[in-house]
């Protein structure tokens, strides 16, 4: 027993070390080629940390009205100022960020997971199944994103859950298509055929042989989807759709701040800046991931 453990440990260590030094080298190269994408990645991480632990640090409740503190400009007490109900904008942004991460993160993960499984199967099996699924996907993609969301909001009701369903329905076809195109490329490779002629199970071929080749592209696509999802949720919030008042929502905050622009421009500035910063950071990160993917292909 002990002998086997030691054996496998000895076997895995050099690989691990190799991968770590390789990763370090790639990151250094990325920093050299595209420093902004590294910064973007760090930015996303910061947003995530703030969303996770921020709510425990903010002194104010995000929905607590305080009429005497209405429309305060930024100060030490309220770093981002207050809104027309006297609510602390920083607290609202932090909580709103948490909501956005929870909603778009969950939706993106579900969409990527489903798209991955469908794309793997459809791409590998091909034939009529592939034809049918691809026609369905074409039809779904013929619907502009926001319109499909609007239809679903109209049919299912105006709720956060509907938004989640809408994002999943929107992005599953896109992820499926991306995964499928990688699978179509990989499945003609001799190593897949070598597995087939050894009678390997479909599960083994899909998830052990093909999946690793799909993952890098999937990471890039996932990051892009995440950024579009944030974009979409913010737009919906702005239209007053898919939000549960008075829960803080970045898009809705921008919308409400419009009427107070002359009096307190900070009400508009901070939530807008939060949206733009997060989307741009995620985009930069996706760009960095794409570059890393290219490096590994070139090597």
């Amino acid at each position: 027993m002990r002998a086997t453990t030691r054996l496998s440990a000895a076997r895995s260590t050099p690989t691990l070390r190799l991968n770590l030094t390789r990763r370090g080298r790639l990151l250094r190269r990325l920093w050299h080629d595209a420093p902004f994408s590294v910064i973007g990645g760090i930015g996303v991480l910061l947003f995530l940390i703030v969303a996770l632990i921020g709510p425990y640090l903010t002194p104010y409740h995000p929905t607590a009205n305080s009429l005497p503190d209405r429309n305060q400009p930024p100060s030490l007490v309220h770093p981002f100022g207050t809104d027309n109900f006297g609510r602390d904008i920083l607290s609202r942004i932090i909580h709103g960020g948490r909501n956005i991460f929870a909603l778009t993160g969950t939706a993106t993960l579900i969409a990527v997971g489903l798209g991955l499984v469908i794309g793997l199967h459809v791409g590998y099996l091909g034939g009529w199944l592939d034809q049918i699924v691809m026609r369905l996907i074409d039809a779904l993609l013929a619907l502009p994103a926001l319109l499909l969301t609007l239809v679903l909001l109209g049919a299912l009701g105006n709720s956060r859950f509907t938004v989640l369903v809408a994002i999943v329905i929107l992005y599953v076809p896109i992820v499926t298509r991306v995964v499928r195109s990688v699978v179509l490329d990989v499945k003609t490779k001799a190593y897949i055929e070598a597995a087939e002629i050894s009678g390997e199970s479909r599960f083994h071929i899909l998830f052990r042989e093909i999946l690793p080749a799909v993952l890098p592209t999937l990471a890039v696509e996932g990051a892009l989807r995440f950024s579009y999802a944030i974009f979409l949720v913010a737009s919906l919030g702005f239209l007053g759709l898919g939000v549960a008042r008075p829960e803080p929502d970045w898009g809705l905050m921008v919308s409400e701040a419009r009427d107070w622009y002359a009096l307190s421009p900070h009400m508009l500035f901070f939530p807008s800046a939060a949206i733009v910063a997060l989307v741009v950071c995620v985009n930069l990160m996706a760009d960095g991931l794409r570059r890393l993917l290219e490096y590994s292909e070139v090597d």
Partner: protein
Amino acid sequence: MIAYIFRRVLFFGLTLLLTSLMVFAAVRLLPGDVETAVLGRGAEPAARAALRQELGLDLPFFVQYANWLSGFLRGDWGKSYAIKAPIMPLVLERLGNSLRLALVAMLIAIPPAVLLGLLAGLNEGKPFDTAFSLISLVLVGIPEFVMGIILINVVALEWKLLPPSASVPPDASFGEALPRLILPSLTAAAVLLAYIGRMTRVGVIAELRRTYVRTAVLKGLPWRQVVFKHVLRNALLPTITVIAISIGWLISGLVVIENVFAYPGLGRLMVFAIQQRDLPLILGGVMISVTVFALANLVADLLYAALNPRIRLS
């Protein structure tokens, strides 16, 4: 080539049919209470039943779909629940407004997008390219409503250069309407410009790495001729497809922009329809948008084929 055209048109029809079925199913099958939407909360059961019968809601799903489809094709798109008026003229009028906005946005965005993307691609890795990549990435990340509000507050309200609202009287000429169209189209153009520019850049870079470029250079052709005669011809072809795809983006963006600028377009009508749960209106509006988008893709495909000898001559 003829087979190719036939195939594209076939797919176009098939896609529209499938999409309409999906949208219709979403609207009809998903839990939604039409009677309450039309008659209000306290309606009598008898009135409800009568309405169901009048609207054909008691028929089987596919019969409903067939009825709706044949009506849609004949120009009878039903009546709006909320406005109590025929849908087609309303939707078409708003569509016209939206298309006007979209057209101006594309005119503003596409020429500089292609030019900048091209320059960035030709200067890959140089400062201009880096700046272009970064700025376009930021631009893609700014939601239309943020961009729109910034423009309204700065250009219209602070500098007072242009009107903040875009509501155009229905009988206004294009020239009269243009100043009011500029801010919303600029907003739409920003994302469009960044997206098309980025894709053009990628296309040019990919094309520059092809081996035939080396052949052309080693013929002794001046670099300018290599770029204009050899590279552009191949690099700009995919841009046609990119523009078609970006129209889908534009349609989504317009929904938001029209609401920011209070512009009487299709998008604003759609948001209204959703808030009112006006299902026939949603259906009509979505189907016309989808048709426009699919048509744009069809035209792009055919144009691409006509310009690409590998498809044209196969």
